[in-house]
């Protein structure tokens, strides 16, 4: 069904003897926003990695905008972006050079001026020509967010986007995500910051031991999580 952005059927992922994900049935419509909640080890990160095509499912199927992220790699890559707690940065490159590499690899022509404007959006202009190795985690996160601006994806996955940020950084990321949701990008966020994220996302999913324990509207999630196990 091409109207859904993400569609999983009986998705499972096994590492050695352990099934980290099992029986995951999921459908996310285009332009929708989903919050993935669950304790550490519940499978949130693995689910995002499988959806992004970084990990192959051991069972079941995944479709991103109708395409299999594994067999139709390149087509899917153009449609999605992943913002992980891993920065994917090269410490030796400057902020500007990093953007330029991303732009060139993404196959989109960007003038230098446009890249500089992007740096300005996240207040990184003074650090334009400084190597990323010296950046704080907040600065790295801001730079990483710019990748979504360059790639202009239809689907964005975010894995713990607020981790290791101060309150100013957290607000920046929240505004960023909210703006993407407004623009109609499909957003899936895995996060522990339930109160903040449930305000931005429409739906929510609670994972327990790799399976979906609860799904519903994001507004109902905080009360759901307070219930005794």
């Amino acid at each position, binding site marked *: 069904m091409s109207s859904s952005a993400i569609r999983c059927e009986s998705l499972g992922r096994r590492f050695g003897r352990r099934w980290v994900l099992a029986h995951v049935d999921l459908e996310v419509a285009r332009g929708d926003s989903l919050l993935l909640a669950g304790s550490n080890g519940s499978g949130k990160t693995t689910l995002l990695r499988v959806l992004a095509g970084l990990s192959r499912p051991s069972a079941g199927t995944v479709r991103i905008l109708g395409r299999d992220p594994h067999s139709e790699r390149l087509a899917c890559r153009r449609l999605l972006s992943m913002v992980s707690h891993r920065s994917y940065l090269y410490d030796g*490159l400057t902020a500007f050079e990093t953007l330029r590499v991303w732009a060139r*690899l993404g196959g989109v022509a960007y003038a230098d001026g446009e890249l500089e404007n992007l740096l300005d959006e996240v207040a990184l202009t003074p650090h334009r020509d400084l190597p990323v190795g010296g950046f704080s985690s907040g600065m790295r996160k801001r730079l990483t967010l710019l990748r979504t601006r360059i790639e202009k994806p239809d689907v964005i996955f975010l894995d713990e986007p607020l981790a290791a940020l101060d309150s100013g950084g957290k607000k920046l990321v929240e505004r960023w995500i909210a703006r993407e949701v407004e623009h109609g990008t499909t957003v899936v966020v895995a996060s522990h910051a339930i109160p903040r994220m449930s305000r931005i996302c429409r739906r929510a999913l609670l994972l327990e031991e790799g399976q979906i324990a609860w799904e519903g509207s994001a507004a109902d999630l905080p009360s759901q999580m307070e219930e005794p196990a």
Partner: protein
Amino acid sequence: MRVLGQIATLVRKDLLLEWRGRTRGLSVVLFGIVTLLLFSFAVGPDSAALRAGAAGFLVLALLLSSTLALSEGFRLEHENHALEGLLLAPVEPMALYYGKALSNTLFLILLAPILTPVAVILYAVDAGPATLVQVIGLWALAAAGLSAPGTLFAAMTSRLRSQDVLLPLLLFPLVVPVLLGSVKAIALVLGGDPMGQLSSWTVLLGAFDVIYWTLSGVLFTHVVEEGV
């Protein structure tokens, strides 16, 4: 073609990072020089023996330095998981392979202008500039032959515990044709080639390069598929 542009971007990125982190390249060069020195100590002050073994010592120094260079090439990619970031971009894994293999080859070729004169001096070799240029050309073919399977194996071993041992264990037996071919060819260039065998050895080196640059490029896709 877009793929060529992506390869160019990746090579430029690697060269830029290499230039910024120059100490790494310097360490490999120094390692090469020390290796050449150690060989001369092992043989002793026998100029005839040194001269006879010069080609072999030079190629061995290249081989030993190559494992350092190859594993370093991937260490950068695993800092901050940058390689995974590349896999998330709309880049063919084959482009990733050729970009990395090309930058590894270039790095190894850059060792030649430094190590060759050192060898000439240490091993009392009688060689003019034209000869040295030929030597560097053969070195380039050898470097390409080492980098092709080397980049493939380094991609695998860089994530494993015993990477320092595994990479040479796999690479050294495999590149025996490169070792033999380049030693013979360089020896013929330095010592004279009465029977005109140079072309056969050069063809062997070239054939190895072509075969492995093709094969490794195809296989690399499968190596990074499971997420490196």
